[in-house]
């Protein structure tokens, strides 16, 4: 077995005294596709924030690519796609190309300047994502689906080893959502990018992800979908019908 790309041990985290995650431990192997599900308030987004260094844990350890997160500096190897931008301004005057290029800042040293290699990576990623034709368009003028595709290109422009996504399809219509999931699946298969996808879409994730991490402040289940489907403990939690709906493969 390879060294885990992400290793979490006895992690506790929360906000102002309220614990959102309790004693969470799991490893993610390179090339896997993990669907992270759980009810509202189960700590899914908190887990993402801790992994990305946006929220310090109250206890426990997070290691990214074999390095303790507090000492981790290779952020160009981690891609992140949020549900939407934190305070998205539809009039923000940035073109798609400018936004995708921002992803290349990760890992650059002071003073951060873009070079020819960056320009080539940006062009290559936009072509791969099928957004070259809109590279001069303003990000705020795009549809939700195209905007998420542009932000995905930003997350992938460094060809990261790990892609973390927090409910990236929430604002998308079912058709766009489906094609988005397919794109992530192909990327995971073809480029061996490890994927961590937080989603409420338990009925769809089973079609694409290799593993399921079910959170409810603690890890309720972590394993393959086959294991999930055969787990009597999960039958007790979800009921047989819901368990098979999530699995999608039996």
């Amino acid at each position, binding site marked *: 077995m390879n060294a885990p790309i992400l290793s979490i041990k006895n992690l506790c985290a929360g906000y102002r005294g309220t614990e959102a995650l309790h004693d969470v431990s799991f490893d993610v192997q390179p090339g896997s596709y993990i669907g992270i599900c759980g009810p509202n308030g189960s700590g899914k987004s908190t887990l993402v924030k801790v992994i990305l260094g946006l929220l310090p844990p109250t206890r426990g350890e997070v290691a990214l690519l074999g390095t303790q997160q507090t000492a981790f500096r290779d952020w160009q190897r981690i891609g992140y796609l949020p549900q939407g931008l934190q305070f998205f*301004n539809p009039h923000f005057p940035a073109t798609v190309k400018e936004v995708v290029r921002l992803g290349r800042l990760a890992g650059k040293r002071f003073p951060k300047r873009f070079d020819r290699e960056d320009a080539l990576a940006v062009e290559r990623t936009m072509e791969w994502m099928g957004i070259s034709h809109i590279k001069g368009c303003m990000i705020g003028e795009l549809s939700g689906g195209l905007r998420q595709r542009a932000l995905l290109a930003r997350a992938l422009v460094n060809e990261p080893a790990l892609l973390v996504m927090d409910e990236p399809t929430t604002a998308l219509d079912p058709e766009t959502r489906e094609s988005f999931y397919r794109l992530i699946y192909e990327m995971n298969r073809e480029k061996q990018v490890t994927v961590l996808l937080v989603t409420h879409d338990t009925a769809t994730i089973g079609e694409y992800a290799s593993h399921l991490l079910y959170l409810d402040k603690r890890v309720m289940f972590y394993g393959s979908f086959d294991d999930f489907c055969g787990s009597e403990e999960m039958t007790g939690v979800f009921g047989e019908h819901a368990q098979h709906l999530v699995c999608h493969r039996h």
Partner: protein
Amino acid sequence: MLSYGFMQRALLGGSLVAILCSVLGVFLVLRRLSLIGDGLSHVTFGSVAIAMLFRLQSVYLMLAIVPLVMASSLGILKLAQRARIYGDAAIGIVSALGIAVGVMLASVAGGFNVDLFSYLFGNILSISAGELGIAALLFTVVLLGVAVFYNDLFASTFDEELAKTSGIDTERINGVLVLLTALTVVLAMKVVGIMLISALLILPAVSALQIAKGFKTAIVCAAVIGVLTVVVGITVSFLANVPTGATIVLINFVVFFLAFAARGIFRR
């Protein structure tokens, strides 16, 4: 008109300040921090009063108030980050403190009210060679700061959370932005006066944002609008013998209106 030394100095000094205000204005407006210029200008009022208490004038006064305004800009940032209050409230607190200190000192010390209030409305036509030298120095420092941190500033303005996940220390970048703004506000005090500094930070930026396609284009566009409006404003003020600061602001408003109308027409 250009044969007058004071006009040459006014046009040069005004253009330097216009470039800085416009470039920083784009970042501030997009971060919804437009009114930080207003807050810092009020702090400048208090700082000028303190400097005058020590009988400092001209270049020495400008140099003396720089650290006070810079410290206040960091104060606004720290208040917003640590005191669980929104940025606008933090600006309001520091701004009110600046005005209160200015008024109190003017009242207690007496004798410099006329000088102090002349800073409220500025007078670029009276800029001295020494002040122009300081303006050129601060211009170089601020523009270099923007150039060096440009990509980090852009990334944190676009989305702070995404910037953090790219390994950008956004707290440090926010600090850099407010410090550069503080230096610019001190410079702009002479051009449009304390009362109208925020207009020079906001108007060229919002005019550029009406028409620009792309972030770099917005920055360049704002700088061009800023310089043009300051040059035209100083010229009109000289020819028509009207207050310079107010003329610059009114011309900026006309440009904003035209850019706003142009946006509406081209969108149809």
